[in-house]
């Protein structure tokens, strides 16, 4: 019997280590249905599809040119020439609930600061009858997504890992009420993690996610408040993390405590990082929560996703002050790191915004 038990233990450990090797980060562009051509068919079929598409496109283009192409000037002297490079993108954002003008102006200011941080210096932001309008010639969808991001940032202690959400099977009732406590054997306390300063790692890095959280869905943005205990997924764009989901305690620091944020390429680790400086009056607070999580994990929660959850000072035998610095490293690309820095450095949006319309204007 003990044989079977130990085999089961070994299997569980092996599966976990194999399964949780790093996964390449995915973004919206990786969603397979966004590409018109299925990614998996055999090469021959792929060629056929591409060929057929090319023919359709050529036929369509020829048709368009015949139907709507330029006439000789004598035919239609009034038609205005439209050139691609002269077009600007014009986006209209509206708050998800009506807001006083002061809030809207604040949101527009934040948006302008983000555009500036992203290098979109020629973009214009205006408020207009309860809406915010942005236009610019070099804007793109990625920039427009970043400028309206809520940007609610919290630094929270990680209480334990949680498995993927598994809704109760049909007929079962979902659990209600607040999240339960992490069970003690899964708690990511410094004592449980037992960091070995020699290897810079937790001696006990096989602490499993607490299975009792499986039936609980992710905490919604409406409930992702600073004083709440929350259950959040790892940010898929930030690469693989220790757990698929995290249970995190009340925030010890939030986005409005940030003074500046810059993206930097770190030669030592060959990766992009975001360097955050905390406002002077929040430095003590930042070091207090970092010290509380010494040799344990702190999670960086941005808009309900965990960007990363680093182990605090695993090299050191005693806590030393971080001063006003926080370094966020995940599997960022340069663009992602710059986007994150732009959002963190300009503070959260005072209101949730949705994109109402997007037009090309000459």
């Amino acid at each position: 019997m003990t044989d079977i038990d130990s085999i089961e233990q070994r299997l569980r450990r092996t599966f976990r280590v194999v399964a949780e090797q790093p996964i390449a980060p995915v973004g919206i562009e990786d969603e397979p249905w966004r590409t018109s051509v299925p990614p998996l068919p055999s090469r021959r079929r792929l060629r056929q599809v591409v060929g057929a598409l090319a023919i359709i496109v050529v036929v369509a283009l020829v048709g368009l040119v015949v139907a709507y192409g330029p006439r000789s000037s004598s035919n239609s002297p009034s038609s205005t020439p439209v050139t691609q490079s002269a077009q600007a993108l014009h986006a209209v954002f509206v708050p998800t609930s009506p807001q006083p003008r002061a809030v809207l102006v604040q949101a527009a200011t934040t948006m302008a600061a983000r555009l500036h941080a992203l290098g979109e210096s020629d973009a214009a932001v205006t408020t207009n009858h309860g809406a915010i309008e942005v236009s610019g010639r070099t804007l793109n969808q990625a920039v427009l997504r970043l400028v309206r991001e809520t940007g609610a940032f919290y630094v929270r202690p990680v209480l334990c890992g949680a498995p993927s959400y598994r809704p109760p099977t049909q007929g079962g009732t979902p659990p209600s009420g607040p999240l339960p406590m992490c069970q003690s054997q899964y708690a990511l306390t410094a004592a449980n993690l037992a960091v070995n300063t020699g290897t810079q790692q937790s001696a006990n890095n096989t602490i499993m996610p607490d299975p009792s959280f499986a039936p609980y869905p992710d905490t919604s943005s409406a409930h992702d408040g600073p004083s709440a205990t929350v259950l959040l997924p790892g940010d898929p764009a930030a690469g693989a993390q220790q757990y698929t989901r995290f249970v995190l305690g009340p925030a010890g620091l939030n986005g409005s405590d940030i003074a500046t944020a810059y993206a930097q390429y770190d030669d030592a680790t060959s990766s992009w990082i975001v360097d955050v400086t905390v406002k002077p009056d929040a430095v003590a607070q930042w070091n207090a929560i970092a010290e509380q999580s010494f040799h344990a994990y702190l999670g960086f929660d941005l808009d309900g996703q965990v960007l990363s959850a680093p182990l605090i000072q695993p090299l050191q035998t005693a806590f030393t002050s971080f001063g006003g610095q926080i370094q966020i490293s995940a599997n960022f690309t340069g663009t992602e790191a710059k986007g994150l820095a732009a959002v963190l450095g300009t503070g959260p949006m005072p209101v949730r915004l949705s994109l109402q319309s997007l037009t090309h204007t000459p």
Partner: protein
Amino acid sequence: MELVSGPMSSSDLSTLFRREHAAMIRLARLLTGSTVVAEEVVQEAFLRIHQRSERPQNPGGYLRTTVANLSKGHLRRLRLERRLLTRDRISFNDPELDETWASVCRLPFRQRAVLALRFYEDLSEADIARVLGCRVGTVKSSLHRGLSKLRDELT
């Protein structure tokens, strides 16, 4: 959960993708033994859910079953084409894990899948049967055979 007929909306799919992508890669990696194949399988699974004309009752369950089926099909195809299945060289720094993983990879597909769903995903025998589309009795016997084969090899 609201009742919606027709295909899943693009935003529903995006949410599902964001929520389940990593978990599905992990599962497919256990079933196929290869990250590259796992990524292909998961892409294809999401594509299938997208191409369905009706929203599945339980998208998560549908996805898991599709991943399991595609993993099996993929292995079969690879074998037929006599291509070398490149298994991940994962350095465990732990001979015990290396040995265990190598033995797991030698098991027939169903036994390996049952073990992964039981000991990684923590599914019940009934749920495993649903995912793999077989009877509970088959799950039980595969579980038993897989475990005793591993016990013979590893102890």
